[in-house]
């Protein structure tokens, strides 16, 4: 017995020595890793911050009422504004979202709630992933060949459809993933009350996943609002306001690209201004929709 207790005391002593020695090392490593993560955070934030700063610095002076509402003046004059581009972006991105969000959410619901094994759902997932990785210029070319050539004109419609094709796979993915996080027990509770599957999905599961899905839609809209390549092939860009759904229209990313490629100081200032407006629009949308998602509504309906 004494031997035993002695040896166990010795073990305890040896263990303590090891722990103490390791402990100092661990503290040091802990500090180093913490510092490294802070450096990484800075490395991620500094470019973002400097971009924002640069855009505000160069673009703020261009903003005026005329700039926001008027079409472009004669080239190099520094007059007029980017009214048509703002209007065009709102119309094209809005229409693309009206097409892309419902299709994406419904497809996501299908994959998460209604697909029952077999090869078809996996095929859908596979092509959806491929679509996510497709270069946007390729989608632009497809939009050009299929829609622009058949209508005979660059158009809002072609641009919106091209952008919605970029949007759909993102929304599908996010919707499916978010719905999968909703606990199965909620669906079970719904089934145990004899509620139909459609109503369980719409009234119980979907509201629980609302925030995640809305965030996904916001990310997708932000992504397409900044797309340039597919718009060159579909809406072309114009210095005029909206003329109709089958006519060409302008958009902010296109306008920025055009302004930046002009050899005039004033055009560059307009370009910075347009960039600022585009960032501001995306930020407002993002913050606004998130705020909307966060306000929970518990309206007891007596």
């Amino acid at each position, binding site marked *: 017995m004494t031997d035993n207790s002695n040896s166990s005391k010795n073990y305890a002593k040896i263990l303590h020595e090891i722990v103490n020695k390791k402990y100092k090392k661990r503290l040091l490593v802990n500090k180093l890793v913490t510092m490294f993560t802070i450096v990484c955070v800075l490395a991620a934030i500094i470019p973002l911050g400097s971009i924002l700063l640069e855009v505000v610095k160069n673009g703020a002076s261009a903003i005026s009422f005329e700039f926001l509402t008027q079409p472009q003046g004669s080239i190099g004059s520094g007059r007029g504004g980017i009214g048509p581009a703002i209007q065009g972006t709102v119309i094209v991105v809005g229409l693309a979202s009206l097409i892309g969000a419902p299709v994406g959410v419904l497809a996501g619901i299908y994959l998460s709630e209604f697909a029952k094994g077999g090869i078809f759902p996996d095929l859908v997932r596979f092509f959806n992933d491929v679509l996510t990785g497709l270069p946007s210029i390729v989608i632009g070319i497809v939009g050009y060949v299929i829609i622009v050539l058949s209508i005979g004109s660059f158009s809002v419609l072609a641009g919106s459809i091209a952008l919605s094709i970029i949007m759909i796979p993102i929304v599908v993915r996010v919707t499916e993933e978010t719905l999968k996080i909703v606990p199965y027990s909620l669906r079970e509770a719904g089934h145990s009350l004899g509620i139909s599957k459609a109503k*369980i999905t719409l009234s119980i599961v979907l509201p629980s996943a609302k925030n995640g899905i809305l965030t996904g839609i916001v990310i997708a809209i932000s992504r397409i609002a900044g797309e340039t390549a597919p718009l060159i092939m579909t809406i072309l860009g114009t210095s005029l306001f909206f003329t109709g759904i089958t006519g060409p229209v302008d958009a902010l990313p296109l306008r920025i690209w055009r302004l930046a490629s002009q050899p005039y100081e004033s055009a560059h200032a307009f370009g910075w201004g347009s960039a600022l407006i585009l960032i501001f629009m995306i930020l407002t949308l993002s913050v606004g929709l998130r705020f909307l998602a966060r306000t929970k509504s518990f309206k007891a309906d007596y």
Partner: protein
Amino acid sequence: MEEPIETEDGIIEGASETKKPTIQGATEKYKVRMENVNGWYGAKRAIKDIHLDVKEKSVTAFIGPSGCGKTTLLRCLNRMHEMTPGAHADGRVVVDGIDIYDKSIDPVIIRRRIGMVFQKPNPFPTMSIFDNVAAGLRLNGMKNKTIIREIVEESLKNAALWDEVKNELEKPGMSLSGGQQQRLCIARALAMQPEVLLMDEPTSSLDPIGSSKIEELVRTLRDSVTIIIVTHNMQQAARVSDFTAFMYLGDLIEYGPTNQIFMNPAKELTERYISGKFG
């Protein structure tokens, strides 16, 4: 089957106890009758040829060690078992004279009449207390607000929750404590006016106070609903149930009045489980 059956001990069941009915008495009214029920997970048979009759307006407890199939059997009674991927059941389950596994029967219709309460409280997180109880009614097409309000109040009263929540019906259901959430789930099930209430270890995630409230509730509800409760807690089975079914490895080992199962079990396996020698 007119006469009561003699047990192995030679005692005629039901004779000694005046009010306690026997399982075997054919004159009794059965609410749920199981014949040859098998439950499968893929090729694995989780419950084997179960024959069991549940008397109307009584509490029947399923007990047994983990993995004995008691929950699977319970889930066969409202066809929730088949929601699990790869799972299926065969045999006959007759509720109120209706074979619920008949091809012409939609499981959704069955589940409107057979309520279920789960192991972990699962109130709908996006809904208020009121809406949680009203959910089953509304989503099944009930539009009359007066009736909904009346049923919600009555269900919360029957679930012994009304006094605690009557002034905060618009608060989220998730804001309640665990025990209250479980009673909310019971109220939600009761709102559908079920004839049978299935409870799957309803107190396993609750503290002793929450558990005792649920047990009390089970005893009161017995007067209006047929209750089948799965529990791993033998004391609980002894306290709340009129009949007890002991299951082991997918077989129904013994079934009878709770007193008899606990005081004088016919099978050695039952006796050993009851006395805590295994399980």
